[in-house]
């Protein structure tokens, strides 16, 4: 992880080549505005015109959320196996290798420890670019271990989600990761250590229906798709169009399932405030940027 200490320049190297649009000029997926890449990097991959949050990698989030150079990866060396000998048009084994080659990751998760404004935390972050951020045994195990490390070191746990749900290629074992991660969060809560869950686009299925919905504080990036069933499945089941804004972060906030929708540029300050509240550090002075509907 040496590249990680290179500071801001490291961002470019960490950008996932296939998931990130190429070239110096990019089109916003939301408003179709043509954007200049260096500007976009400076704004943490948020469209300056419409506020669309591009999908970014766990490593890019670490740059954004943590004190520079503070991230240390833990529990690396866990790799997926193929307990079911699953194959469809491709073997699961081949899909794993392809995803590893594409992303440079071992699985859809990077976990470790870091500091936020000097406050130590455990972190487990999903990468959507690796098989849709799906949760199989490695994801479940690394989240469970991150929670255990948080307990051992008496620090809070941050999870950052971007996932299509359980990894069906691991069958029932992927379903069981929901119980496994939730059970460890129960233990973390008993230890009176906070879990802060950050939801990014998209967070659905078994991830939403387990650890991601179990934060003491749940933050979500604007307009992220967050839900249990996917919109396509719901549309086909009820055979009607879905309402505007359905299953977006703002929808979840309005229905009481997310504490705050937070713009990417404010994630670090928000996190620092929440962590300070739960721990010994003084609350940061100065106000967080107010949203229009805050009171």
């Amino acid at each position: 992880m040496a590249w990680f200490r290179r500071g801001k320049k490291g961002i470019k190297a960490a950008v996932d080549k296939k998931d990130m649009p190429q070239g110096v000029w990019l089109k916003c997926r939301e408003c179709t505005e043509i954007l200049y890449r260096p500007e976009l990097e400076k704004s943490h991959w948020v469209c300056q015109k419409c506020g669309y949050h591009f999908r970014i990698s766990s490593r890019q989030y670490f740059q954004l959320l943590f004190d520079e150079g503070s991230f240390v990866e833990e529990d690396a060396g866990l790799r997926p196996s193929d307990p079911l000998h699953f194959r469809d048009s491709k073997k699961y084994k081949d899909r794993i290798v392809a995803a590893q080659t594409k992303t440079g990751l071992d699985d859809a998760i990077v976990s470790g420890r870091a500091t936020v404004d000097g406050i130590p935390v455990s972190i487990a972050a999903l990468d959507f670019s690796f098989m849709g951020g799906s949760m199989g045994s490695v994801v479940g195990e690394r989240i469970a271990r991150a929670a255990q490390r948080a307990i051992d070191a008496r620090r809070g746990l941050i999870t950052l989600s971007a996932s299509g749900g359980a990894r069906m290629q691991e069958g029932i074992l992927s379903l069981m990761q929901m119980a496994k991660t939730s059970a460890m969060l129960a233990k973390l809560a008993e230890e009176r250590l906070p879990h802060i869950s950050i939801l990014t686009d998209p967070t659905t299925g078994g991830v939403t229906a387990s650890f991601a919905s179990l934060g003491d504080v749940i933050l979500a990036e604007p307009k992220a798709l967050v839900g249990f069933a996917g919109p396509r499945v719901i549309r086909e089941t009820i055979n009607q169009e879905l309402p505007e804004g359905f299953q977006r972060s703002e929808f979840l906030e309005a229905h009481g399932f997310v504490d705050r929708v937070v713009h990417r540029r404010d994630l670090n300050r928000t996190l620092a405030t929440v962590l300070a509240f739960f721990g010994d550090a003084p609350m940061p002075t100065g106000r967080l940027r107010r949203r229009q509907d805050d009171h």
Partner: protein
Amino acid sequence: MSEGMGGWLDFERPLVELEQKIAEFRDFADGEKIEIRDELRRLETKAEKLRTQIFTGLTRWQRVQLARHPRRPYTLDYLQRLTGCFLELKGDRGFGDDRAIVGGLASFRGRKVMVVGHQKGRDIKAKLERNFGMPHPEGYRKALRLMEMAARFGRPIFTFIDTQGAYPGIAAEERGQSEAIARNLLVMARLPVPIVGIVIGEGGSGGALALGVCDRTFMQENSVYSVISPEGCAAILWGDRARAPEAAEALKVTAQDLSKLGVIDGIIPEPPGGAHRDVDAAATSVGDTLDSALAELEQLSPAELVEARLQRFLAMGSYLEDGLPKGLGHS
């Protein structure tokens, strides 16, 4: 689903027809006559052979069909046979009562237990009332309320799992389907009383697991338990729900598969031809399993119970660590 001919599956129909023929023959023929007795014996031998032929080596898809059999016993069919007293308790105390999940106070072989389970409907009206056994968030919250109540009063919990999955609808999302399921997983993991779960039909994804964080989990011989329905899996993999039988094979959804993998504690045998052919016998087997599992768990203190449950779920997984196989499914 083949619901024609009185709700029998294609592959069991020859057997059912033969059995009906035998029954008619017995009713109308004169059993004193030696040639009729011989003919009856011949038909019965044939039926026995056919039964063995059909039910040994069922494909995974056939197991799925049996798990969804229109005549398969549901939670209340078992409770009726297994409990001396069952007092249903309703509602989540927040929004409403979800009829896709039932729960209540029961007596069972000299014990007092809390029971919760998914409930499907038999006829069209009941199917609609029960929403085809697919719960909304309030169903999971009702189950949670009852389970927490049981824990407070030191009563063990039985869960009966039988759902296609949590309902994918607008209202369900508005009321927090994800949160409801996740909350059950978190709370069940730490309840200080024994929890025994039985998959009696379909163990469909998160909607099933929300009643599935147990100290012991058993599956009936012809039940299935899966992260995604075979149809849903086939739709994602091949864009074709009709390829569900292939998906069922790939997903390894049967009791036999899960037992081999080490995810469940045992398989409960069903009467010949499936639980629906002899519900009383099926219920007795389920009851015996609940009884012995509970007797075992009652030996543990609440602290031991909860720690063992945590370890049980921490062991769920299969991966390589520094190249070495860890967890389940490496044999």
